[in-house]
């Protein structure tokens, strides 16, 4: 990832050099997913689009754009629009501001009526977009007004613009709570963070028809890009943290446990405590915490046992405290977690260490940290873990990774791998898609890079469509064992074309590698095919920078290769005969 596009970025540099930055991003990447973004604007959106494009590229998303004519967001949403229909957006961003509010209440008006009519207008837009385009929608809420006619009374009087906008925003939030695939871009917060007076400088509206300061555009684009990359499964998954002068002040090896600064006794210790609490809060989002520290292990653990430490040894999944280079430890942590290195954020106060890790391991983010009181600001505003949906699996992720560590220990005590698998008492649930899992299935399709044969991505609406289409065989797989519930970890989508079942998608979460779940899925797929009198299954493998691990997957499943092109794309055929032997012998399957 380009350092210039991580927070704290220089908005002026980005605005001035956007063409050069785009060129650089396009040059040094290892592959993009392509997405179509429609921007329906209530004001000029050109720069918002140009800068958003950069931030999306930095997250591995190559976007093409539709931009509505100036201030035509309402018309574009409500009426037939051949161009937008042909564009077929993957996501729609409604970019409006309080300049688009049609009518504020005067002191004589019934504020409730105006509030509801303003809200209904937006609701109409969202419903119309949803019915026409079946894709996620991002909607700006409203920034607070630039002036306050009644002064502070504006906030409490129902005729006040501040009150009106605040309530309008709450109605939008409520809609977001009750509607999937609908997301608020909180410009009310972003503008406050930037400074409302600067953000809403009227010069930019009257001169250029931008409803915000052009210099603030990168902050808006950054936030929208973060929501989009989160929807398409590009969030980071965890932190890899340094210890000395990162989690506490001082060097535990030199200063001793009693000498490090953490806890309520003095101000420096308080700041580190606050930072530790901030990190610990991430656990509830399923963000994994790990340690990569140059220390003797005993000293590292002793530091975490400091009576005032908010974080303890149990909060971390992997702890590497030794004298190896940090990039080596970092790579090992990613490897042991079965995660791509770029999905982990490196947090270290030392610029030299940040440099080594981000230079040695491609794609790793190592945000610039200055002084400890600004650690939270930098990590938080980068939006690494921007939440768009929270699945139960997210909430339990830390626990699941810990269970995996226990499994690894259990594995060591068996000489025969099958005996080990049997000892896990695995139970699989393999069934056609069900409404309650639609979101998780879409999320998994967007997040799986390694165990993914075709790397097709599916939105929630795509999955909804497929699950009710008779021409598809759909299967999800959950896996439970004696150490815990791994959740929904595998998905297969087969497309029936006459007497052939073509596998559009076969993915599995890397946390259940080598547990034979893929064989249980195959058994189930074969069963479903037989029920429909289908005797041929065709599979494809499309190589990407990340999915080499499943290059020979179909061969392992007993398929025969039927073709291969110069790019390494392969096609495989499986013919089902009457004596199909079940491949899975270790998982008890519930159908």
């Amino acid at each position: 990832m380009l350092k210039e596009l991580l927070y704290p970025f220089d908005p002026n540099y980005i605005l001035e050099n956007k063409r050069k930055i785009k060129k650089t991003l396009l040059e040094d990447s290892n592959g993009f997913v392509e997405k179509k973004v429609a921007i329906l604007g209530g004001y000029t959106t050109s720069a918002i689009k140009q800068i958003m494009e950069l931030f999306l590229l930095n997250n591995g998303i190559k976007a093409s754009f539709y931009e509505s004519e100036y201030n035509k967001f309402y018309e574009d949403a409500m009426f037939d629009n051949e161009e937008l229909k042909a564009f077929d957006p993957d996501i729609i961003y409604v970019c409006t501001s309080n300049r688009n509010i049609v009518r504020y209440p005067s002191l004589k008006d019934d504020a409730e009526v105006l509030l509801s009519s303003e809200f209904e207008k937006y609701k109409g837009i969202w419903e119309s977009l949803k019915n026409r385009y079946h894709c996620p929608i991002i909607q700006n809420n409203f920034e607070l007004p630039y002036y306050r006619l009644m002064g502070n009374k504006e906030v409490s009087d129902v005729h006040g613009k501040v009150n009106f906008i605040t309530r309008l925003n709450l109605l939008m939030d409520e809609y977001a709570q009750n509607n999937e695939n609908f997301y608020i871009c909180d410009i009310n917060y972003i503008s406050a963070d930037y400074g409302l007076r600067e953000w809403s400088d009227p010069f930019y509206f009257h001169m250029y028809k931008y409803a915000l300061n052009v210099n603030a555009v990168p902050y808006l684009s950054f936030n929208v890009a973060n929501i989009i990359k989160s929807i398409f499964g590009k969030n980071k998954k965890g932190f890899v943290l340094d210890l000395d002068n990162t989690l506490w002040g001082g060097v535990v090896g030199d200063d001793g446990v009693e000498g490090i600064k953490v806890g309520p006794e003095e101000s420096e210790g308080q700041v580190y405590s606050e930072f530790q609490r901030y990190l610990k809060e991430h656990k509830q989002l399923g963000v994994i915490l790990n340690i990569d520290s140059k220390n003797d292990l005993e000293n590292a653990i002793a530091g975490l046992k400091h009576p005032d430490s908010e974080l303890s040894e149990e909060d971390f999944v992997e702890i590497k405290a030794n004298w190896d280079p940090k990039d080596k430890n970092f790579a090992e942590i990613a490897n042991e977690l079965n995660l791509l290195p770029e999905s982990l954020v490196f947090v270290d106060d030392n610029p030299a260490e940040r440099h080594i890790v981000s230079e040695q391991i491609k794609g790793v983010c190592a945000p610039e940290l200055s002084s400890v009181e600004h650690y939270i600001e930098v990590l938080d505003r980068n939006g690494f873990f921007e939440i768009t949906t929270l699945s139960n699996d997210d909430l339990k992720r830390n626990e699941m990774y810990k269970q995996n560590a226990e499994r690894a220990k259990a594995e060591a005590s068996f000489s025969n791998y099958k005996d080990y698998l049997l000892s896990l008492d695995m139970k699989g649930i393999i069934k056609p898609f069900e409404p309650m899992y639609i979101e998780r299935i879409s999320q998994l399709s967007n997040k799986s890079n390694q165990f993914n044969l075709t790397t097709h991505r599916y939105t929630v609406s795509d999955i909804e469509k497929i699950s009710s289409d008779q021409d598809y065989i759909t299967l999800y797989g959950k896996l439970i064992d004696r150490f815990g519930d791994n959740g929904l970890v595998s998905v297969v989508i087969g497309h029936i074309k006459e007497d052939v079942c073509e596998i559009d998608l076969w993915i599995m979460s890397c946390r259940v590698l080598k547990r034979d779940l893929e064989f249980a899925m195959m058994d189930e797929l074969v069963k479903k095919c037989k029920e429909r009198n289908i005797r041929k299954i065709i599979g494809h493998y499309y190589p990407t920078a990340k999915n080499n691990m499943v290059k020979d997957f179909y061969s392992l499943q007993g398929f025969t290769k039927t073709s291969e092109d110069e790019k390494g794309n392969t096609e495989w055929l499986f013919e089902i005969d009457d004596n199909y032997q079940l491949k899975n012998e270790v998982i008890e399957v519930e159908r």
Partner: protein
Amino acid sequence: MTREEVMKTLNEIFCNVFDDDSIVLTDETNANDIEDWDSLEQINLIVAIENEFGMMFDMAEVSDLANVGEMADLIMSKSENE
């Protein structure tokens, strides 16, 4: 700041904004001379110039600039007044 220095800085800004190092500005250069210079890029240019020279233009000042020379004159007159 001399007028030559202003022109030199403007030239650098134009090269960055259009990512084209071959741009050579003269007083007469205007939007017809640079392919990507449309009304939307004009906004980006003005913002970049404001940031580079650390000054803000008001609406009246930027509304009727005809070419780069007039822009340079405007920057000169504003920096003299400061």
